[in-house]
C-alpha cells in the first residue's frame, strides 16, 4: 500500500512536472530529505520501471504518463491489518476500547492481528492515552487488561472522531461510509438512512457530504452503545451545564424537535429506553452541520462568524465592497457558523480532499492557516481549527478567485503574432473555455502601442516580454503541456503570489 508521504511526493511531482530538488520536496511534504530518498526508492520498487527519475544537481521528476498508465497496478494494493499506518492501527484499537468502555479487554486480543513488538504496543497505548485525554477519557492498564473510562458523551465523540478519521477518508458518500462497517446490518443501515432522510425532510433541505456522515456515524455509535448495554448512567452535571443546555434548546426549537423525534425513533427501533440527554447530544451535532440552504439566525455566533469572515477577507486584502467579495463573505459565514458549534462541541469533520487542496491551492491554504493561527492568538477564534476546516475554507477562496479570474482579460503573444501564439490561443481556449481571451498579438505590436492593451490583465506569451500597466506575464510553451496548464491554472485560480 502506498504510504501517505509517498502519495504526497507523487502528487507534488505531478503538480510541478519539472525537476524538483529533494530539499524542495522535503519542505513541501514535511519530511526529511533522507525520508524523501527512501520513499522514492520505495515508490519506484512498486513499478516495473521507475516512475520517478533523478538527475544529479536537478532533483526528481515524475514520468507522469508512465505513472498514469500503471497507476493502481502497484503490486501491494490490498489492505490488511499488517498494512495499516500507525494512525489507522491506533484508531482501530481506540475504537475497540471505546466501544467496550467501561469494560476491560485483554491486550493480546486487541493487538494479536497487528504482529507488532511489545515496545510498539506500549508506545501505541501512550499515544492513545494522550489522544483520549483530550476528551477527558482515562486509559487504565492492569497487567494485560486495558480499559477506558469517561463520560458517555465524550466516549461517543472520541469513537466518532476515530471512525471518521479512519473510515471516512476513503468514502465518497453515505453508502460508501456505511459499507466500511462490517457489523452494520442491512436493517440498521436502512434505519439510519431513514433517520437522515427524516432530518432532511423536517428541515426542508439536504445535509451535504461530509456532514451527513457525521450524523450517520453519531447515530450508529448511539445504537451500538445502547444495544450492547455498555452505557452507564451519567453523573450529575453542574448547574452551569444545564443552563447552557436549556439555552441551546431554547435557541434552536426546530432542531430540538427533530432531535427528540429521531432519538424516540431510535429508542423504539432498538427497544431500549434512551435518556433525554441523548436528544441534546444529537442537537449538538445538528447545529454543527452545514446545510444546503442557510437558516436565518441572528445570534451571537452569527456576529462572531461575520467578524471572523471579515478578518479572513482583510487578510487576503480583497476589495470588501465588490459583489464577489460579499458573496464570498456569505459563503464563509455559512461555513464558520456551524464550525463554531463544531469546535465548541469537539465535533470533527473530515476533509477527504485535504491532500489535493493543500497541493492544488497551497498559497491560499497556507495563508488561511496563518490567519487562523493569528485569529486564535487574538481570541477572535476561541479554539484552534484543524487543517480539515482550513481546507474547507480554502475551497471558498479558491471559488472566489476562480470567479474573479473569469473576468480577467487575457492576451496571447509570441514574437510574430501569427505562429506559436495562434496555436497557444487555441490550446488555452480548449483547456480554459471560460477564460476571456481578448486576442493575439506580436511582441513588437504590443511594445509599439501599450495603450491599446491597457485593459489586459494577463499576458500569456511564448517569448519573454515586460508588461506595462497592471498586466501580469505568464510564460508558456506553444505545446501548452501539463506544466504550462498548471502554471496558468495556478495563476488564474489563486491570482496572487501568496
Amino acid at each position: 500500500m502506498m504510504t501517505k508521504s509517498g502519495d504526497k511526493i507523487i502528487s507534488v511531482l505531478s503538480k510541478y512536472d519539472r525537476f524538483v530538488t529533494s530539499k524542495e520536496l522535503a519542505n513541501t511534504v514535511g519530511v526529511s530529505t533522507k525520508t524523501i530518498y527512501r520513499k522514492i526508492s520505495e515508490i519506484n520498487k512498486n513499478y516495473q520501471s521507475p516512475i520517478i527519475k533523478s538527475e544529479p544537481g536537478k532533483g526528481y521528476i515524475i514520468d507522469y504518463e508512465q505513472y498514469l498508465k500503471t497507476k493502481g497496478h502497484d503490486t501491494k494494493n490490498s489492505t490488511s491489518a499488517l498494512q495499516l499506518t500507525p494512525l489507522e492501527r491506533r484508531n482501530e484499537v481506540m475504537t475497540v476500547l471505546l466501544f467496550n468502555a467501561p469494560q476491560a479487554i485483554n491486550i493480546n486480543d486487541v493487538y494479536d492481528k497487528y504482529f507488532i513488538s511489545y515496545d510498539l504496543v506500549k508506545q501505541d497505548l501512550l499515544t492513545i492515552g494522550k489522544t483520549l485525554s483530550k476528551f477527558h477519557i482515562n486509559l487504565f492498564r492492569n497487567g494485560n487488561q486495558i480499559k477506558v473510562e469517561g463520560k458517555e458523551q465524550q466516549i461517543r465523540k472520541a469513537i466518532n472522531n476515530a471512525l471518521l478519521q479512519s473510515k471516512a477518508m476513503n468514502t465518497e458518500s453515505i453508502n460508501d461510509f456505511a459499507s466500511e462497517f462490517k457489523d452494520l446490518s442491512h436493517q440498521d443501515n436502512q434505519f439510519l438512512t431513514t433517520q437522515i432522510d427524516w432530518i432532511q425532510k423536517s428541515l426542508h433541505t439536504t445535509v451535504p457530504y461530509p456532514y451527513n456522515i457525521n450524523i450517520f456515524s453519531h447515530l450508529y455509535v448511539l445504537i451500538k452503545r445502547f444495544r450492547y448495554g455498555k452505557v452507564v448512567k451519567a453523573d450529575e452535571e453542574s448547574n452551569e451545564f444545564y443552563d447552557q443546555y436549556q439555552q441551546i434548546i431554547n435557541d434552536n426549537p426546530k432542531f430540538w424537535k427533530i432531535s427528540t423525534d429521531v432519538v424516540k425513533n431510535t429508542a423504539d427501533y432498538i427497544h431500549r429506553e434512551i435518556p433525554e440527554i441523548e436528544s441534546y447530544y444529537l442537537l449538538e451535532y445538528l447545529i454543527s452541520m452545514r446545510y444546503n440552504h442557510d437558516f436565518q439566525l441572528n445570534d451571537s455566533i452569527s456576529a462572531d462568524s461575520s467578524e471572523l469572515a471579515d478578518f479572513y477577507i482583510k487578510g487576503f486584502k480583497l476589495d470588501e465592497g465588490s459583489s464577489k467579495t460579499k458573496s464570498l463573505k456569505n459563503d464563509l459565514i455559512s461555513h464558520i457558523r456551524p464550525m463554531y458549534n463544531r469546535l465548541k462541541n469537539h465535533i470533527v469533520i473530515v476533509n477527504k480532499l485535504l491532500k489535493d487542496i493543500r497541493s492544488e491551492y497551497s498559497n491560499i491554504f497556507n495563508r488561511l492557516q496563518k490567519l487562523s493561527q493569528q485569529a486564535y492568538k487574538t481570541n477572535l477564534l476561541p479554539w484552534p481549527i484543524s487543517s480539515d476546516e482550513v481546507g474547507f475554507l480554502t475551497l471558498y477562496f479558491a471559488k472566489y478567485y476562480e470567479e474573479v479570474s473569469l473576468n480577467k482579460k487575457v492576451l496571447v503573444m509570441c514574437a510574430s503574432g501569427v505562429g506559436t501564439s495562434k496555436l497557444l490561443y487555441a490550446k488555452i481556449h480548449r483547456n480554459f473555455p471560460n477564460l476571456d481571451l481578448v486576442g493575439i498579438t506580436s511582441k513588437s505590436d504590443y511594445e509599439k502601442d501599450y495603450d491599446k492593451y491597457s485593459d489586459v490583465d494577463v499576458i500569456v506569451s511564448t517569448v519573454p516580454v515586460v508588461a506595462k500597466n497592471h498586466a501580469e506575464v505568464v510564460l508558456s510553451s506553444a505545446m501548452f503541456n501539463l506544466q504550462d496548464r498548471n502554471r496558468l491554472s495556478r495563476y488564474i485560480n489563486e491570482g496572487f503570489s501568496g
Partner: protein
Amino acid sequence: MKVFLDKHLDVENYDNWVTLTVNKHFTDYDKSLRQELVTELVQRDQLGSLQIAERVILPHIIDSSLAESVIVISQLNEPILYRTNVEITTGIYILARQNEPSITKIINRLIDESVILTLQSSRLTLDEVQHILT
C-alpha cells in the same frame, strides 16, 4: 505560396538544419538575404521554444522582403537534441510575407493534433502536404 517536403535529412543541430533548409529552398535569393533569413530563424529560436508538439518544432518568421511565402515540412533521419533535452524529428518551417492570409489558415490546421501526426509520417507525400495545408 510555395510548399516543400524534405525527407530523410541528416543534420547536427537546429542552426545547421535552418541553414540547410534556407539554402535549399531560397536559391533565387542572394547570399546575404539567405543569411538574413537564417539569422532571423535562429534569433526567433533564442527568444523562446519553438516546440509545438512532441518531436515537432515550428521555426517561423515574418519578413516583408520575401518575394513569396514558403512552407517546408522537413523530416529528419535521426532526431536532433533541441534545447538540451528534447528530441525533434520534424520541423514545420514557415517563412511568410507580412499579412499573408494563407498563413493563418495553415496555423489553424496545425491546431488539429491529427494533422501534426500526419506531417510526421514517413509515408507523407508532397501532394498530401498540399492537400492538408493549402
